[in-house]
């Protein structure tokens, strides 16, 4: 027969939550059954004890397996509770681990993103600092002028690599900008070029600048640029190296009324260049004051003579110095027409003819010239009919003859000077003939208000 130790050989290890009497109760109940069975077997069947025990065990079954079933039956709820608790704990740990992993991953991603953002910010800051910093150290910079930049202008002829243009003058002007103090006042400063075509404009504050260059042919061009903080600037300008081609022009007036009294009031016409030419991508505007070229000033006046004058200016060789109109050339009457006897050489191109009326005063010394209009200057003696201007083109390589047809309104104003105001107030048009100019018989005309 089995003893207590043998019956419990298949039981699981002792658990902490196991009742202290459980194993003993199971063993006692099984042993009691086996003892009862053996006693009965010996009483009824007789025989030896060993065979009786064998029969008892045969009817009972394996006591170790029965004890194991009973133990699990008693501990089942606790085992399942523990398993559920352990499973829940494991599940919670897994969930927590997953959450921690996800949080770690997200944190890692955030760190990566922050690192990338920080790197991008650093690069941006470097760029900004690079923009603010001067490209090259300015030797003349000092702590007292920490924000100034060095401005230089280089001028070459015809091309970027052309010879230096030293006969130009340039004017530098700082444009006022919102939010920027204009310490150098926005005032224009003139500079001259050295033999190498360079102009050192010195230190200046950052901002937007305008450089106007006047060539030796009195042509103008303007360049604008921006100088940032601590960054020197070299402005390179290419200027034209040759003057525009000269062409010939004569003037004539047709059908001048006989009764027109031009003794005290004359008709004047002056030419203004309107065109420009492009050199190295930059437009150069003509001023009408080319060197060694006197722009004609048409004057129809005393004795109905057509004369040619030149505008007074300091650069003109015919300037008398007292703001008088100088009339250097006689005009002759050819076949009943008033035609200028001089062929004028002027640069070819587009011009604007501007007409006006001027008071005339005979020169006390009659040299056959008109020696001025009033003696007090043109601004007080001439009335320019600014709205009666026409444009035309002087073509190169041929003789250009400009014909002026005097309109009735202008004739009326010349006859009666009081009509000038009347015509102006009524807005009547004063035309200066019609048609165009070209070949050998062109004509000038215009229209518009009187003043």
């Amino acid at each position: 027969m089995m003893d207590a130790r043998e019956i419990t050989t298949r039981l699981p290890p002792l658990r902490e939550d196991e009742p202290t009497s459980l194993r003993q109760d199971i063993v006692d109940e099984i042993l009691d059954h086996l003892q009862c069975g053996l006693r009965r077997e010996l009483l009824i069947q007789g025989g030896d004890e060993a065979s009786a025990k064998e029969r008892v065990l045969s009817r009972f079954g394996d006591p170790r397996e029965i004890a194991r079933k009973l133990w699990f039956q008693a501990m089942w709820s606790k085992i399942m509770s523990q398993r559920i608790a352990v499973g829940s704990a494991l599940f919670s740990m897994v969930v927590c681990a997953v959450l921690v992993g996800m949080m770690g991953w997200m944190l890692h991603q955030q760190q990566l993103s922050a690192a990338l953002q920080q790197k991008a910010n650093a690069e941006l800051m470097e760029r900004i600092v690079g923009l603010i910093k001067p490209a090259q150290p300015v030797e003349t910079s000092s702590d007292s002028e920490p924000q100034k930049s060095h401005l230089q202008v280089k001028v070459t002829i015809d091309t970027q690599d052309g010879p230096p243009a030293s006969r130009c003058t340039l004017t530098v002007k700082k444009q006022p900008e919102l939010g920027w103090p204009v310490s150098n006042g926005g005032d224009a400063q003139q500079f001259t070029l050295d033999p190498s075509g360079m102009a050192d404009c010195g230190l200046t504050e950052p901002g937007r600048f305008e450089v106007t260059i006047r060539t030796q042919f009195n042509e103008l061009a303007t360049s604008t640029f921006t100088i940032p903080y601590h960054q020197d600037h070299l402005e390179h300008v290419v200027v034209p190296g040759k003057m525009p081609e000269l062409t010939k022009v004569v003037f004539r007036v047709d059908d001048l009324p006989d009764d027109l009294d031009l003794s005290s009031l004359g008709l004047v016409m002056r030419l203004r260049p309107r065109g420009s030419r492009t050199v190295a991508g930059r437009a150069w505007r003509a001023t009408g004051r080319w060197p060694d070229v006197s722009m004609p000033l048409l004057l129809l006046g005393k004795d109905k003579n057509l004369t040619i004058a030149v505008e007074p200016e300091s650069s003109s060789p015919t300037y008398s110095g007292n703001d008088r109109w100088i009339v250097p050339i006689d005009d002759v009457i050819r076949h009943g027409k008033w035609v200028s006897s001089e062929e004028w050489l002027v640069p070819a191109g587009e011009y604007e003819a501007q007409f006006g009326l001027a008071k005339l005063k005979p020169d006390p010394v009659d040299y056959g010239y008109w020696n001025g209009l009033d003696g007090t200057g043109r601004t007080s003696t001439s009335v320019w009919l600014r709205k009666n201007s026409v444009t035309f083109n002087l073509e190169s390589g041929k003789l250009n003859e400009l014909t002026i047809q005097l309109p009735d309104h202008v004739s009326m104003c010349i006859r009666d000077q009081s009509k000038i105001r009347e015509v102006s107030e009524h807005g009547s048009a004063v035309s200066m003939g019609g048609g165009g100019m070209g070949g050998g018989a062109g004509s000038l005309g215009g229209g518009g208000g009187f003043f």
Partner: protein
Amino acid sequence: MDSRLLSGAVEMLMLEVISHGRTYGYEISQTVDSRSNGYFSLKEGSLYPALHRLETQKLVKSSWHEVEGRRRKYYELTSAGIKALDAKKQEWQAFASGIQGVLGEGHSATAIPAF
């Protein structure tokens, strides 16, 4: 015998044996065996898991007593066990009656002489 039918029957038989008074495992097995004329040739050890299940279900209650120098576990029916036994008896009698009815009709039909 069908094990499912046998499982329900054994529990009912154990409850019936216990209902007659406090008893213990070996006595229960011997009573069932003698009353059924050895029909339920079960391993005696298999009664104990069933007994403990009934105890867990509060249909029986147990107590330990010292007998001949050994500890013996006695079982007796609870009020819930009494109700459960009555219900199982009625259920079994209805089941047996139904079975007997069918088997009885078949036997009667064969006994009636055909005219």
